């Protein structure tokens, strides 16, 4: 029974809970037990909120018993990335600088989840301030990939994706600044979606790079991701960059896709994202996915987006620049860590000592790169040029979408690498985000759906699907059709 509950999809669990076949408390307890049993090995969670989760589950069960109409995912458990504030529940962003902080307010995403009756199991591990591609930059130890515990689960949202792959939760929330939802999804064999920029409110999302940060749904199936997408999306007056437009019909699109017909749909294969530097098994998995999409009726052709070759360097200027400004708020004065305040030191000295003690090496590196790129004399050559590349990337997308409904590529060039393998080589680490970054720079939606396992190492591979802004539903339709055609590919044994 417990085994059935943890392997079920969110849609299946919701149906069972809402019909009274099983209670949300039973479902929640099964997942809490699974976390207790496996998280010593995986380290997906930084905080498990047992009491809060069970209280929410009881509320949903009472509503169901009373015959009330409940939300589509009411009673279903979820793992929340520790970048979202949760009132009275620890929020560390994977950093020592916020250790022990209890936020006095909920992020909009948190509030929407609670209002929808979703059960928040706890907060998941992440690279500090979402800066990383492996979750090794967490101040609280790395998360391990459930498919192979010696390997990384991707990052920055490795905790959320690993929790899904380990059957600790059927749903999770991630945030994606350069690939932090999609790349962990790819290397853990799970679905991860970065919605159109502005589609999901950033209020209460601890900021890294505000023009790129976007929260989105993570799940084991495309339909589950769509159901969660509709819960968290929508205009929010608390976020001035929130888009005031209807939420794209992603659930209807996922259901339509399950019919398996993509006749007439035009799919472009981005030629920049293959070849040298790509693992052969990843490319073979990608080619197999292309063949399956053809069999479903899609028309497929190559498309060149030359500026995408410059997306990675542009990103590693824009994101650090914005972070150097955003992280100035961690000043040891109003919340978080304070170090060295012995009565003799000035505010400035206390700030510097606190930030030195509270931030890890990658965060310091990026703050200094950003400080450099924004300084007078270097601004035009670095930040200014990166902003121009951003224009070119947006133009390449627009041109490609004149001829194609969606674009595809591998999500990431390799399968999960070993923990420690790239830890001392920032450039090698950054390359994990090669294919995912353009969509962040252009603000367009993109997702990763598993394309099975690589034939050379048996590890999961992701297929990336990209759509024009506010056309999020297009990629859900394609992903759902592909998922049905692909079939099951097993799961990790833990």
């Amino acid at each position: 029974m417990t085994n059935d509950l943890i392997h079920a999809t969110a849609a299946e669990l919701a149906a069972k809970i809402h019909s009274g076949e099983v209670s949300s408390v039973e479902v929640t307890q099964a997942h809490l037990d699974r976390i207790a049993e496996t998280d010593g090995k995986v380290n997906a969670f930084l905080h498990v909120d047992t009491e809060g989760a069970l209280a929410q589950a009881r509320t949903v069960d009472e509503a169901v018993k009373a015959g009330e109409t409940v939300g589509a995912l009411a009673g279903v458990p979820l793992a929340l990335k520790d970048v979202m504030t949760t009132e009275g529940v620890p929020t560390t962003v994977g950093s020592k600088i916020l250790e022990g902080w209890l936020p006095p307010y909920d992020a909009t995403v948190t509030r929407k989840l609670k209002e929808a009756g979703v059960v928040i199991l706890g907060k998941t591990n992440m690279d500090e301030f979402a800066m990383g591609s492996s979750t090794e930059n967490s101040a609280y130890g790395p998360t391990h990939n459930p498919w192979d515990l010696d390997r990384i689960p991707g990052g920055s949202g490795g905790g959320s994706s690993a929790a899904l792959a380990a059957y600790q939760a059927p749903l999770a929330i991630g945030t994606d600044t350069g690939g932090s939802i999609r790349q962990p999804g790819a290397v853990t064999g799970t679905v991860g979606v970065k919605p159109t920029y502005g589609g999901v409110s950033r209020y209460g999302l601890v900021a890294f790079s505000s023009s790129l940060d976007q929260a989105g749904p993570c799940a084991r199936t495309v339909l589950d991701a769509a159901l969660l997408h509709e819960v968290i999306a929508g205009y929010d007056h608390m976020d001035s960059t929130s888009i005031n437009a209807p939420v794209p019909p992603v659930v209807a699109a996922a259901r339509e896709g399950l019919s398996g017909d993509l006749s007439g749909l035009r799919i472009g294969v981005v030629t920049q994202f293959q070849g040298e530097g790509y693992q052969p098994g990843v490319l073979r998995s990608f080619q197999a996915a292309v063949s399956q999409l053809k069999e479903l009726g899609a028309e497929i052709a190559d498309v060149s987006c030359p500026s995408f070759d410059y997306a990675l360097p542009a990103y590693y200027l824009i994101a650090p620049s914005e972070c150097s400004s955003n992280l100035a708020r961690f000043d040891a004065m109003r919340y978080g860590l304070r170090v060295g305040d012995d009565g003799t030191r000035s505010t400035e000295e206390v700030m510097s000592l606190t930030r030195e003690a509270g931030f890890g090496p990658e965060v310091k590196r990026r703050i200094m790169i950003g400080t450099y790129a924004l300084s007078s004399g270097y601004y035009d050559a670095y930040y200014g040029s990166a902003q121009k590349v951003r224009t070119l990337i947006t133009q390449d997308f627009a041109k490609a979408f004149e001829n194609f409904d969606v674009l595809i590529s591998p999500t990431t060039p390799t399968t999960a690498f070993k923990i420690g393998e790239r830890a001392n080589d920032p450039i090698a680490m950054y390359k994990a985000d090669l294919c995912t970054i353009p969509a962040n720079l252009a603000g367009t939606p993109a997702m990763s759906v598993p394309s099975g396992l690589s034939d050379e190492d048996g590890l999961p591979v992701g297929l990336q699907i990209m759509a024009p802004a506010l056309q999020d539903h297009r990629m859900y339709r394609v992903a759902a059709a592909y998922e049905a055609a692909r079939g099951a590919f097993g799961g990790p044994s833990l």
Partner: protein
Amino acid sequence: MPSISRDEVAHLAKLARLAVTEDELDLFAGQLDVILQSVASVGDIATADIPPTSHAVPLTNVFREDVVRPSLGQQQALSGAPEAEDGRFRVPRILGEEA
């Protein structure tokens, strides 16, 4: 080709309010140099005629009605403070002894 010295890294750390150690200066000087060299390629295609994009969604100022809404109370706002006194944030001295 850009090149960044140990002294420049020390200056950046000071600007960014990071009391980095001597060992870190050595480490970061090397790494920042490599990173900056690898991202300098943006200059290859960023010609003068291309307008910059600071934000994916072209937004100008967003206005809303000026209505009173609930907000954090004093106690909640101070709940995470490293130190508070008399309902206010307590901070280390801001001015020097001689000032």
